[in-house]
């Protein structure tokens, strides 16, 4: 388990160096809150549907953006070489970076979830299941941030790659419009987006007990995150060529 301990050290370093910065924290929060004000307060959408979508969205925007920027910053300042020269495998480095987002995800999710549930009067059916869905979503989107920054040399380049994934997901993953209200072909297309499973898992958990949908969503998210971590580690290994 030595590799996991070192991954946690890398994660905590990332939290201190990159995550706990006001601009980074607020970036993830601003857009979802603005969307809630646009759709939720004006009554255009059901708050029950909207809250789980917004919580997933805040995790996506928060963790993915910060980790993508963190990786590029490490390359630019050559501190990535410090990690690569250390006796840790690329998999440990990627895992550490994804775990950094897992520390932060629950904090920014809570910053949106708690005020919105209090304001709207919606209840959190199963806090434990909600927490687990938030943790797994945070890890998945943070790992996705590492992967999209693999090719990027500059921060704007990393953000561009991240936007290719974030914006289609933000509007197509059942965040604002329930999947069942979409045409069948679009419903099928949304099944390749990890945000879809995050939103769905949170919505199930907000509703109460463990459902087959919740379990399936969590399994898909876990498999997706494992694939993303493996691909990121492979990319990091290939950077040695």
């Amino acid at each position: 388990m030595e590799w996991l301990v070192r991954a946690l050290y890398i994660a905590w370093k990332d939290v201190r160096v990159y995550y706990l910065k006001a601009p980074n924290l607020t970036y993830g929060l601003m857009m979802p809150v603005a969307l809630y004000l646009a759709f939720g307060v004006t009554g255009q959408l059901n708050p029950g549907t909207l809250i789980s979508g917004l919580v997933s969205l805040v995790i996506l925007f928060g963790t993915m953006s910060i980790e993508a920027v963190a990786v590029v910053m490490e390359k630019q300042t050559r501190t990535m070489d410090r990690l690569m020269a250390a006796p840790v495998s690329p998999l440990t480095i990627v895992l550490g970076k994804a775990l950094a987002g897992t520390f932060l995800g629950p904090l920014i999710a809570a910053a949106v979830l708690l005020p919105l549930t209090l304001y709207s009067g919606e209840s959190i059916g199963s806090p434990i299941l909600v927490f687990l869905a938030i943790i797994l979503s945070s890890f998945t989107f943070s790992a996705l941030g590492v992967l999209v920054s693999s090719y990027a040399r500059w921060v704007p380049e990393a953000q561009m790659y991240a936007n290719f994934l974030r914006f289609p997901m933000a509007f197509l993953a059942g965040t604002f419009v329930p999947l069942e209200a979409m045409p069948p072909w679009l419903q099928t297309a949304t099944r390749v987006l990890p945000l879809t499973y995050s939103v769905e898992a949170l919505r199930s958990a907000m509703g109460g007990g463990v459902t087959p949908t919740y379990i399936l969503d969590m399994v898909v998210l876990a498999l997706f995150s494992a694939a993303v971590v493996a691909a990121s580690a492979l990319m990091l290994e290939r950077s040695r060529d």
Partner: protein
Amino acid sequence: MTDAVNVDHLTKHYGGLLALDDVSFKVKQGTVFGLLGPNGAGKTTTIRILTGLTRPSGGTATVMGFDLTRDAVKAKQRIGVVPESSNVYEEMTAAQNLIFAAQLYNVPRADRAARARELLELFSLEDRARSWVSELSRGMRRRLTIACALIHRPEVLFLDEPTTGLDVQSARRLRESVGGLRDMGVTVFLTTHYIEEADQLCDMVAMINRGRIVALDSPENLKAGVAGARIVEVSFSGDVALSDLTVIGGVLEVHRLGDKYRLTVSGASDVYGGLVDYARARRINITGLNTLRPSLEDAFLRITGETPGDAEAIKTHGRDP
């Protein structure tokens, strides 16, 4: 005894560019080894392969018996790396950087703080332990980078251009630190394009040019290799044409160095008379005359076949601004 570093027929291609061409050498434990060469010669590629940052295209490289490709993690546990640009985290304090390095290299938890304090003292940074790295001078960051590389008591320390960009005082201090490391039994592998630095510090030197090792010996042996020729440095009170000096008997080569002329001669005493006669004829005075032993720079230029003009990147005392 296992060699600290063993490089065997190493090659590296970057696309169509051949950066390293069949490079082989060994470094004994407890010595200071210098890899010399102009910018772009292959020094950094070699050190990146030896520190596991770059994968070779062919050949093998081992550190303390561990192959950098097959046993990378074990090899890396035994080495410390100081890259050309200091890569400590600016958003952390000096002490936090050292503790993070200790965590990465699996230094026992109970020893981390004491080891960090010890290194801060060794590199005269004890009063800056709680300073953010962004507040430290370039020389202090360099020393902190070296301290981080030593946190786990590595058996081999790799230093890539350790004094580039440092002021004269910081560079001298750093060179003293390298000497101290050898006394502590650490094998030091350094790359530099400051030839005099290598002459002062290294037990063995490899000269690399265009990706190939062109010489491998001790600095003294390399200098002795050009002993057939001697160097005379002369300065005059008036202007002198280079072509006038080349026709003086016994003069093999002439280069202008600032206000001086450096003559490579077959025999110094034969040339003195010619220089005096030349100055008299031109009605100018000789304001300086020195006979020098060939330097490591002379050996490098002789071995690589380059003139000082070609080898502009090779410096002796010069420091980057």
